């Protein structure tokens, strides 16, 4: 779609677009083309070039390992931190003309640690006890937020004042020893990496701070019992990892022609692959992994024929392929001994991201809801054409977002490959339409099936992966598909994209008119929403609820987690596939980046922040994503794409406090302040459930004096939750929402609907 945020331009090729600097030996011209006599130099050049690239990978990978080891956060934001430091460095050096050393000090030694510290203090400090999924989404938000801020504020078009500065005293100097010759910038990269890795190993092995850092990983609580400020230790380690990421970012910059966030996302994925190779703990293994990846990538760029499309795609996406394979097959990862915190029980158990609210069984709202929808749809038909068109887009996007509702909201899996499903469906339908004249109406079904097939393809091998590893696998999968498969002529139609007609079938069915197409999209959305609603109410929904709570527990009562998860993946991919066809048909063509990783990340972020659990959340996401940039444009704000990223990225700060999603949070706030006092039984049950899932705030008000014997409602409680709230008195629902009422007495028999107290 046209408003892809520019974090991922279509062709991001770290090798293809590099300067000639990576060809080390035989300096001038393509050294490898000179015949066999140069083969020694060739190999040496390969090693040196691979070494430099691998060193940068290894550097950032040590940053990943460091934050994971010291704060249990898988810091996806490191890529963004590296980008920011590189952008600062570039601006200081090239735009302002400051001396190299000064720029380096500011970008790496000041901005780097401050960014790490800022992220820790504002976001990640509170996240130790939240579900891993929330941490992941927050990191994702920062990954989008930081580059967006940098681009929105001053770095809009990237660097356009010469190539990024290398960390060398003399540019373009080449050091030579016999057959080995190394350009200065590569030498400095290698030296810096050695410095950092040796320094880190020494830190962990020989210093008290390193000892404390290692201890904090295991149990911050026990570190505190030893009289050490665990928070301070975490802060220092975040500053350290921020510095390392900044250094990696600054070192990587000269390997590319310009500084774009996409290059740094590649760097991040490569670093993650190296870190995964090091089992997320071992620094030496991580170094080896980074170097190996650098060599491998260098070797591929040298020895693969450069004209094949597959090779074109494979070279830059090698890190993704490696990461995907490592996640699936690297035994070190599965056998990793999870050192558990002996004091884990001190902190409240993490509640699931998808809370406790089940779909309402109250059908009394169906009629007003339907009528309201019909009226709104009818009103929409009166809108001027361009707004009609935009709202259609929002509805199409909402349909795609319902696939998140199934997979993330119901199954609790954070998938970053929904755009790949949508793309598979769209390209499948478009190719059929273009080559075999299959009408798009049929293509809708075919697209759904293609999406479903891709969904099965990804879900089967990743069944054993949990949490963060599944997310990383889906990210790697998206990157692979985006880089290797979608650019193929036979799939995505090459650089030109594909023409996608509006649904039309020999005169009987004609949706080519904008209004007719709008109605079709509304119908598709309604069907998808109904399916999601029914599935959530039904057995599968209950199974998924159980699995989200505890996979082992669900298995122990006879639920097959694999089957339920595959079902969720399949349904989700089906919806995404159909949505993808509609999306391309809405635009009447596909273009590069429509279904790329940039959209994948942004979509996931928007839906999860707004509420992945509810259909409302998906709707809000679709409308926000389509209409918000239009508002920005209407307000005359330059660089609206970057600002959009800033706003959605900032949403993570709110999300940290409301992991149930903004739509629900706003709804709750509205109900508290303006809602009706009388609730239906169903609503009261819902509210009471929310109350129990929220931590009890400290009772600071004198009104609920703890000494006062508890009298209200001590008697035998009625069975239904509605009646419970009734006995609790006039402000019943307020009490339930805010949770600030008098404490429950311990001897009170818990009503069955509450579960055990």
């Amino acid at each position: 779609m046209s408003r892809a945020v520019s974090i991922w331009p279509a062709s991001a090729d770290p090798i293809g677009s590099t300067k000639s600097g990576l060809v080390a030996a035989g300096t001038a011209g393509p050294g490898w083309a000179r015949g066999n006599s140069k083969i020694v130099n060739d190999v040496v050049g390969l090693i040196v070039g691979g070494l430099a690239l691998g060193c940068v990978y290894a550097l950032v990978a040590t940053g990943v390992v460091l934050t994971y080891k010291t704060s249990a956060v898988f810091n996806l934001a490191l890529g963004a931190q590296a980008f920011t430091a590189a952008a600062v460095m570039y601006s200081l050096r090239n735009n302002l003309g400051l001396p190299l050393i000064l720029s380096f000090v500011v970008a790496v030694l000041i901005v780097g640690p401050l960014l790490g510290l800022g992220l820790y203090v504002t976001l990640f400090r509170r996240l130790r006890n939240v579900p891993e999924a929330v941490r992941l989404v927050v990191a994702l938000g920062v990954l989008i937020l930081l580059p967006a801020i940098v681009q929105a504020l001053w770095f809009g078009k990237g660097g356009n004042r010469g190539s990024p500065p290398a960390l060398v005293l003399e540019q373009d100097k080449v050091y030579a020893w016999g057959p080995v010759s190394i350009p200065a910038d590569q030498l400095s990269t290698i030296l810096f990496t050695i410095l950092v890795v040796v320094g880190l190993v020494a830190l962990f092995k020989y210093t008290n701070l390193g000892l404390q850092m290692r201890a904090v990983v295991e149990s911050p609580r026990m570190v505190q019992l030893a009289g050490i400020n665990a928070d301070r230790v975490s802060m220092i380690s975040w500053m350290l990892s921020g510095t390392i990421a900044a250094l990696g970012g600054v070192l990587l910059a000269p390997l590319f022609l310009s500084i774009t966030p996409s290059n740094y996302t590649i760097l991040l994925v490569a670093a993650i692959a190296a870190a995964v190779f090091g089992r997320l703990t071992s620094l030496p293994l991580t170094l080896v992994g980074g170097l190996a990846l650098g060599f491998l990538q260098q070797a591929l760029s040298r020895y693969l024929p450069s004209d094949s499309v597959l090779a074109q795609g494979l070279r830059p996406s090698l890190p993704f392929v490696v990461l995907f394979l490592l996640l699936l097959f690297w035994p070190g990862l599965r056998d990793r001994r999870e050192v558990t915190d002996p004091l884990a029980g001190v902190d409240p158990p993490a509640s699931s991201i998808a809370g406790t609210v089940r779909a309402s069984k109250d059908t009394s709202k169906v009629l007003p809801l339907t009528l309201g929808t019909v009226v709104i749809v009818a009103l929409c038909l009166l809108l001027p054409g361009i707004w009609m068109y935009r709202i259609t887009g929002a509805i199409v996007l909402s349909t795609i977002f319902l696939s998140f509702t199934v997979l993330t909201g119901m199954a609790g899996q954070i998938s970053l490959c929904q755009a790949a499903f949508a793309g598979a469906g769209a390209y499948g339908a478009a190719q059929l339409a273009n080559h075999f004249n299959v009408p798009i109406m049929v293509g809708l079904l075919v697209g759904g099936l293609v999406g479903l097939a891709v969904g099965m393809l990804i879900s089967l091998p990743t069944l054993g992966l949990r949490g963060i590893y599944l997310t990383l696998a889906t990210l790697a999968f998206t990157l692979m598909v985006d880089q290797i498969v979608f650019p193929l002529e036979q799939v995505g139609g090459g650089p030109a994209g594909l023409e996608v007609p509006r649904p039309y079938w020999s005169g009987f069915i004609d949706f080519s008119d904008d209004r007719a197409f709008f109605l079709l999209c509304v119908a598709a959305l309604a069907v998808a929403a109904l399916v999601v609603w029914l599935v959530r109410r039904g057995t599968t929904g209950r199974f998924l609820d159980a699995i989200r709570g505890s996979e082992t527990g669900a298995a122990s009562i006879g639920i097959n987690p694999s089957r339920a998860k595959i079902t969720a993946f399949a349904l989700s991919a089906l919806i995404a596939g159909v949505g993808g066809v509609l999306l391309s048909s809405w635009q009447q063509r596909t273009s590069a980046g429509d279904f790329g990783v940039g959209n994948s990340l942004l979509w996931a972020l928007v839906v999860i922040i707004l509420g992945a659990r509810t259909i409302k959340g998906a709707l809000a996401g679709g409308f926000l994503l389509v209409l918000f940039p239009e508002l920005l444009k209407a307000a005359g704000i330059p660089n609206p794409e970057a600002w959009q990223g800033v706003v959605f990225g900032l949403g993570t700060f709110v999300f940290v406090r409301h992991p149930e999603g903004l739509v629900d949070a706003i709804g709750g706030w509205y109900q508290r302040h303006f809602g009706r006092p009388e609730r239906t039984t169903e609503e009261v049950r819902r509210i009471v459930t929310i109350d129990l899932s929220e931590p009890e705030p400290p009772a600071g008000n004198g009104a609920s004096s703890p000494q006062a014997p508890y009298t209200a409602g001590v008697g035998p409680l009625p069975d239904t939750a509605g009646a419970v709230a009734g006995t609790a008195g006039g402000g019943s629902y307020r009490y339930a929402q805010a949770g600030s009422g008098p404490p429950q007495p311990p001897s009170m028999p818990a009503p069955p609907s509450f579960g055990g107290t």
Partner: protein
Amino acid sequence: MSQPMPPAPGWQPQIPMAPPEPQIPPAPPVPQVPIAPPAPQVPMPQQAAPADPAGYVTAPVAAVQPGPEPAVPLLTLDYVSAGYGQFRALFDVSFAVPMGCAVALLGPNGAGKTTVARVCSGLVQPTNGAIYLGHQEITGMPAHELRRLGIAHAPEGRSVFASLTVEENLLLEFRSSLGKTGAPAALERAYSWFPRLRERRNQIAGTLSGGEQRMLSLARVLADLPRLLIVDELSLGLAPIIVDEVFETLDTIRSQGCTLVVIEQHVNKALELADRVVILQKGRVVYDGPTDELGDLVGQLIPGL
């Protein structure tokens, strides 16, 4: 389990080797104010009994009898409530730990004993109420600051850093409390008390046996005696003979002036050691008084005894 254990000297700190107490200086101020008990002390456990709603056995209450105890207890819990997330574990718990005493904290499973220990050491923040160390209010202070004030907590279960070596476990503690200069001496003391640990100094702590891990967590605390030591189920999973030794060790360190709060499943052992007993049930104090006045109430208050 008992086989690798050294004989009793291995467990018992030799008193002559004990260091001159670095924490003694903060202690004296307490007896200096015997005349006027400070404000925080006023809402003392007397009120706990009338507020007890559920009709539990009303306990003979601590502060009623003046006795030889110092006027200001070392640790005072004043209507402390606490919980985990939405779950509430403690309801208005009040009791005092007099200076130099050993207090046994008893009660059935799920009574809130461990939560009391965590609240005292700052791991869990009370949602209501206040905690005092001597005169100083320590409510809401983080655990690491309380450790520096002299409250040490040996938590329940495996409480060593499993991924660090034995020596690193000890150094982590000593370096923070004694500084780099004091750490080697403390390390030496710990090793002389527990020679077994010296043998295993470079072993990863997670691979130690249960008894050795207990030794390690005790050695971490004992090489630098705190003012208040809270031990949570120290004898869990240990052979009976070693349990005896653990209790002898606790007795010894009490005689060196360290105040103890002991949580135990071995009720009889705990009662032998303790001067006072606090019994919890369902998050409330149902008994708080001297051990000798407990009599056969203990059978009523702790089911299954």
